[in-house]
């Protein structure tokens, strides 16, 4: 009687890049692409967050649809015909990268972002001189010894808002404020982070794809010119505090811990930690 219930799932069949594909009902087009080994760029999507489909870099063409659809959030329907690598898709994805990178400093974005930009031949410089754009010219917000917020790197993907909110932490310390060009991620009434509702779980840092949110340790090492990811190792272990058993990925450089993450596919954490797990490692070097 120690059985775990087995879910009975209905399968849905559709056409993906000319091939007949069957997926469980409820699966998104992106899920299907990942199962079929079709590489698809994403920015605002993460496996541990609910899709908000704001970045549009994962768009695909669906027969009968007037506009391109975000693959991350569109469920597969029976008989759907999807194309992921048409000229229209490639153009759209390239434009998304060019527009984002023309207004935001992307040099610390995940390596795959740069690989996709190269893949699609994105040339953000054709949009003009980025240094004159207000979003780029912002000082880094350093308001405590754990986080920095460098909003010149923010692409407004909302992942941090989701992780702070009902996808994980339920603290709701940050949200988008302002409209149009002035839209930005902010604490309530733009108070400093220590004065906000923030509880410093760092789950926003964990999901940020562009380095806009970072450990203070990483920021300081970058400022000092000592941050070197090629010299870093990542070791998975178990958090030393309570009994929940969160897995920690200890990023180490020169025999010191410089950053802590958690695997998004770990059944205990889904990539999310608390302040003790994320920042409580400093006694290792006390």
């Amino acid at each position, binding site marked *: 009687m120690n059985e775990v219930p087995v879910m009975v799932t209905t399968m849905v069949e559709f056409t993906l890049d000319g091939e007949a594909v069957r997926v469980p009902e409820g699966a998104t087009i992106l899920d299907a692409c990942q199962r079929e080994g079709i590489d698809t760029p994403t920015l605002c999507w993460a496996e541990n967050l609910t899709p908000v489909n704001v970045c549009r870099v994962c768009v695909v063409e669906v027969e009968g649809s007037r506009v391109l659809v975000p693959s991350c959030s569109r469920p597969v329907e029976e008989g759907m015909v999807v194309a992921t690598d048409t000229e229209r898709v490639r153009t759209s994805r390239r434009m998304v990268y060019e527009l984002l990178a023309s207004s935001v400093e992307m040099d610390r974005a995940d390596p795959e972002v740069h690989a996709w930009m190269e893949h699609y031949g994105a040339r953000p410089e054709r949009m003009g001189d980025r240094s004159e754009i207000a979003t780029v010219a912002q000082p880094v917000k350093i308001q405590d010894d754990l986080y920095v917020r460098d909003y010149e790197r923010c692409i407004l993907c909302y992942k941090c808002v989701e992780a702070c909110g009902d996808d994980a932490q339920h603290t709701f310390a940050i949200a988008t404020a302002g409209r149009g060009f002035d839209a930005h991620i902010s604490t309530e009434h733009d108070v400093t982070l220590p004065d906000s509702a*923030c509880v410093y779980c760092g789950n926003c840092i964990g999901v940020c794809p562009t380095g806009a949110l970072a450990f203070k340790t990483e920021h300081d090492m970058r400022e000092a010119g000592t941050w070197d990811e090629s010299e870093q190792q990542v070791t998975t272990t178990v958090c030393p505090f309570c*009994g929940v*058993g*969160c897995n920690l990925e200890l990023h180490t450089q020169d025999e010191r811990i410089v950053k802590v993450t958690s695997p998004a596919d770990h059944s*205990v954490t889904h990539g*999310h930690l608390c*302040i003790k797990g994320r920042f409580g490692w400093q006694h290792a070097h006390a």
Partner: protein
Amino acid sequence: MEIEEADVIVMWGSNARNAHPIFFHHALRGVANGARLWTVDPRRTGTAKFADHWLGLNVGTDIGLAHGVAREIIAAGLTDDEFIANATTGYEEFVAFVEPWTLEHTSSVTGVPAEAIRDLAHAYATADKAQICWTLGITEHHTGVDNVQSLCNLSLLTGHVGRWGSGLVPLRGQNNVQGGGDMGALPNKLSGFQDVEDDEARAKFEAAWECTIPPTNGWNLTQMFEAMGRDELKAVYCIGENPVDSEADAVHARAMLERLDLLVVQDVFMTRTAEMADVVFPAALGWAESDGTATNSERRVQRMRAAVPPPGEARQEVGIINDLAALMGDDDWGQPTPQELWDELRTVSPMHGGMSWDRLEAEGGIQWPCPTEDHPGTSFLHGRLWERPAQGRLAPFSCVDDRPPLDVLTDEFPLRLTTVRALDSYNTGVQTEHFPSPIRTGEALSISTTDAEALGLVDGERVTVSSRRGAIAMTIEVEEHLAVGLCHTTFHFPETTDINQITSDAVDPKSGTAEFKAAAIRIDKLASPVAEDRAAEDRAGDPASTNDPVGTHA
């Protein structure tokens, strides 16, 4: 996690929002999926703020409340009679035992409105899948074991045990406190929870280990301190524990340790206990400087891996123990690797038998029992109770008496002090004091607005807090919605505020756990600044210290 699929979640004596934040993420996912959340706690905690219902009971009345819920389930005809008949014993006696616990009587004892008790009883009993989760609010009482059993009664009445999504969930406080028990670091158990006093089990271990194992149970921590007082225990090898800071009635604990002929302390920091030691073995951190395993609250065994080398003379604990064994004349142990030690465990502990090192690496974690290599591990226990006939020992109802805290409230000590935890700190603070938390506010004694006004105290005022054990200086923090007569504080900063000088020395004789949750105290205005200066000088006389990597607050 199963809690994401529960229909009713009862957090009883658990502020998981602070103490088990990532578990609470899963509980909130359950709420998002439609579960209703109850919290039972004297304080309206961060956890309670997410709940549909908060039952703010009087400290130490958990058994009474559980009996009241049980009686209501019985009286309303909401019991699972098939499960009771086939899987439990002692039902008739239990029904008679809880009969006096009417909603009105329970309400008068616990301070919880009758309607709220009724709502909880009905919701829990009629849910398809319901879980009761608890932590130290249940166990750190002189009736800790009885408290747990009173909650078990509720699951037996309703069949909320041994089924996917339903169950009893004790949330463990330390990353490997479960693993310590699994390995046999208990006075009455060998590895895999086999009884020391079981001749057959002992013979198996004696054959495997080529040694003789004492045939009777050893002492738990509380009994060890008692034995020190009788001069029966003269030498202690203390590994990863800081009793000087973590024991209730700290002055007494220190006096007992001073009686020892020999105190050896093995720790990652020079704790205040280590300061007292004759010999100190500096140890490597278990989680970042050593290889091994840890077992979490779900019985999930996971690998811990060394990421950085230990500093200075600190060494892996396995190596320290092996070298000590060799010096004591037994040099046959060699220098086994953690994997070799694990494989030896698998030969003597059937519940770990199927967990090969390779599987732990590949699968990321396996829940015991896992007897064979083709066994997937076990998500939940006690499914045997749903076999017909039920397999193994039937589950007994427990007729446990409601007994209030032993440190009674009197005119001299009229306020109830309970110890709690902050989100960003851990036990006696030794591991968490090193990171600069922006949300750390330091130690303060929280007191209700009503009590503060009655005592003529204002927020931030320094006061003397006294109990029958001692007195310390503290800062008070006035908390608007705290129950009248209730005070709370953390114990994360023993160097500056040694709470355990005033906590209760009452102990649960069944578990050995001290009643950290219920001391009787008095608050006095600071007589003069001199008194505080003297207190500060007393503290300065203590060796500077850092603290406990694991603490006793299991």
